[in-house]
């Protein structure tokens, strides 16, 4: 686990520094306008605020390239803006307009774009995006696209089964997935301490054998730096990375929730660490901008938001009959994979392999581990296993052909010969002699007992 700091961010150009400000401020101003629209009853459903968390959405998504894929959560409007969606998409989604990306079928940040912006729509159930984005990363690798995928999860969402299944699968597949865990201290009304008994949620990465980082989520440059490192790591084929960004949810779960359960001093502590004033100070102290530049960017944001809000407010609601359309793809989409590698590589005979596991290490207690640990009887077990006893490494079938798999040290022939039980013979089916013998024994056994058994259902 590493702790990221702001210093490494100095590789950014002036334009990029200003971009980060633009997107954070755009994110905040957009959401403030939506609060006003909510109070005017112009937002049809709920409104979830990312106030105070803008540095995470923006700093993480900014580390991605256009070919990369992301899947936002409800508080990642900033990430959508960075990925190229416009404020009008967010306004129209919340106002349930026909002009919205989902044409009124879903709201909030529940939309995406497969073709251009490579964005997967979230669902309300937490954790499900992690296996989905693992699959996107696996498909990207299979097609030779060299992409990285990114999604977010909260401290609360990290308690779900899908989080575990997804991250574990990503780890075993060494998928190019960056998972950003936004620890905003509160899962609805439940504090993080009641969700996870860990000081750093990034420690969960240890359980999956993957790399992790902890970062100050209110420092946009630190967030960007940590994420860029993670993205580079993923692209190089080193497997998934879990980044914990510490922050604070500065509003209730949604607009209806006054968050009276949050101790006042907590809000005060974090208000003093608001990511936008912090970053403004950073830009000023390093002379990256001046008051005129700030005014110029702020004015641009106002202009863009004015135009897009007007567009959204003047847009029609969808025609009622749309409700019954589109549950199925009836040929409306042409499905075609974008191959960046020769298809021959994954087509027989080139793809064909010897399908069996090999076990160069034989399981049992690791000798180094035993030397350090105080486990009763462990040393005896290790001694009985012999001097080669080490942690098991079972190699994937066809590992020599598949570059992605880790190559363990080659085992000696003696070791393999002494472990026939660990080799699962391929084809243990009807054609396998052993299987045929067992089956005939079983059926003879059955016939002996046939009198005692109830008759089988006939067909």
């Amino acid at each position, binding site marked *: 686990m590493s702790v990221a700091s702001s210093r490494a961010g100095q590789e950014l150009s002036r334009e990029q520094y200003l971009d980060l400000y633009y997107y954070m401020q755009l994110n905040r101003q957009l959401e403030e306008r939506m609060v006003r629209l909510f109070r005017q009853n112009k937002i049809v459903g709920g409104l979830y605020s990312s106030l105070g968390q803008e540095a995470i959405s923006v700093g993480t998504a900014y580390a991605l390239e256009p070919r990369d894929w992301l899947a936002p959560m409800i508080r990642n409007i900033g990430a959508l803006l960075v990925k190229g969606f416009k404020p009008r998409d967010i306004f129209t989604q919340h106002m349930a307009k026909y002009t919205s990306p*989902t044409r009124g079928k879903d709201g909030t940040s529940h939309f995406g774009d497969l073709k251009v912006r490579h964005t997967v729509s979230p669902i309300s159930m937490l954790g499900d995006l992690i296996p989905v984005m693992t699959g996107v990363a696996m498909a990207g690798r299979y097609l030779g696209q060299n992409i990285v995928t990114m999604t977010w999860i909260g401290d609360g969402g990290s308690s779900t089964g899908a989080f575990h299944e997804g991250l574990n699968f990503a780890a075993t597949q060494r998928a190019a997935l960056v998972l950003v865990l936004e620890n905003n201290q509160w899962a609805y009304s439940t504090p993080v301490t009641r969700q996870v008994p860990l000081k750093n949620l990034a420690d969960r990465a240890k359980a999956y054998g993957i790399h992790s980082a902890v970062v100050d989520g209110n420092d946009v440059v630190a967030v960007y730096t940590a994420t860029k490192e993670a993205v580079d790591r993923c692209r190089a084929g080193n497997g998934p990375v879990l980044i914990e960004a510490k922050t604070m949810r500065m509003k209730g779960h949604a607009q209806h929730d006054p968050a009276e359960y949050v101790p006042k001093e907590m809000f005060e502590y974090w208000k003093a660490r608001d990511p936008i004033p912090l970053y403004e100070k950073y830009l000023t102290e390093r002379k990256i901008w001046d008051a005129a530049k700030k005014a110029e960017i702020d004015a641009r944001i106002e202009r863009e938001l004015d135009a897009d809000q007007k567009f959204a407010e003047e847009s029609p609601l969808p025609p009622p009959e749309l409700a019954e359309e589109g549950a199925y793809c009836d040929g409306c989409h042409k499905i075609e994979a974008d191959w960046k590698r020769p298809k021959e590589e994954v087509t027989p005979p080139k793809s*064909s392999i010897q399908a069996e596991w090999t076990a160069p290490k034989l399981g049992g207690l690791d000798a180094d581990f035993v030397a350090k640990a105080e486990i009763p009887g462990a040393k005896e077990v290790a001694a009985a296993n012999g001097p080669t006893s080490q942690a098991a490494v079972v190699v994937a079938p066809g590992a020599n052909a598949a570059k992605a798999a880790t190559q363990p040290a080659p085992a000696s022939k003696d070791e393999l010969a002494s472990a026939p039980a660990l080799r699962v013979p391929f084809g243990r089916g009807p054609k396998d002699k052993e299987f045929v013998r067992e089956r005939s024994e079983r059926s003879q056994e059955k016939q002996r007992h046939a009198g005692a058994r109830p008759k089988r259902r006939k067909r």
Partner: protein
Amino acid sequence: MAAITMLEGIRQALFEEMDRDPAVVALGEDIGVYGGAFKVSEGLLARFGPERVIDTPISETAIVGAACGMSYLGLRPVAEMQFIDFIACCFNQVTNFVAKSHYRWGAPVPMVLRGPSGGGVHGGPFHSANPEMYFVHTPGLKVIYPSTVYDAKGLLKSAIRDNNPVLFFEHKFLYRRVKDEIPAGDFTVPIGKAAVRREGRDLTIISYAAMAHTALEAAELLAKEGIEAEVIDLRTLLPLDRETILNSVKKTNKLLIVHEDTRTGGIAGEIAAIVCEGAFEDLDGPIVRVTAPDTPVPYSPPLEERFLPNAEKVVAAARELAKY
């Protein structure tokens, strides 16, 4: 040409589709080196390699989620549930993520989720279920449940080529018990079309999967008593072939529905409603159901025998219906 089993038919469909299109990949628990719990995918890994035949951890949610993510990049994954009962573990991923994707934001999910289902093999409460109706009640999915070798192969090919998420139920009692000669070469069976397995004038028996064979067996017994039953095999449960159902009822005027699924909320209720809406005037008697009772599938043979519908139960019900 030699007859092959339904299991072999399914295996052939997988091989041929993966040969035809490198976008088709397979993933699931123990499907690679081991060849799947029932050996459906035997030999798949050796031919197509570990990039296309993926052994996964025991994580149903991850299997379905990853398959969905793969399909977003234009792949056509075929995910296996080792036993279809375990689909309960990824219910959310299937019903909320996968099924709603195209409706909500226009993202098609061209994936197949297949697995062995059904009772009659003493699998007990967790290896015998027929959970199809959870998914028939989920718009956005297609649900297939074949009964013959030809249909299993042809429908699986159609499912893989379909742009929507398709659940493909494989009745494990039929895996090695049903054998048929099928034509060589590529063929498909259209999704959403029922088959009339036997023509008859006196009453219609509608069924699917293993019970389609039970219905046929019952029809032969009824014929000896002079009752000619028409037998319809649904093949696809979603979308349902209303036309074939209504045409048959309009011809025979009596309807009996047989399914291995439990009674309440089974597809018989939906079919009864369709017939009441579309052919009420044509009915000469009550719509009768022969189904499993509303219990889990029991383990012990006499209990399971009692649980499952069989030809005797169908004949008895049909005899009563024929009196109207």
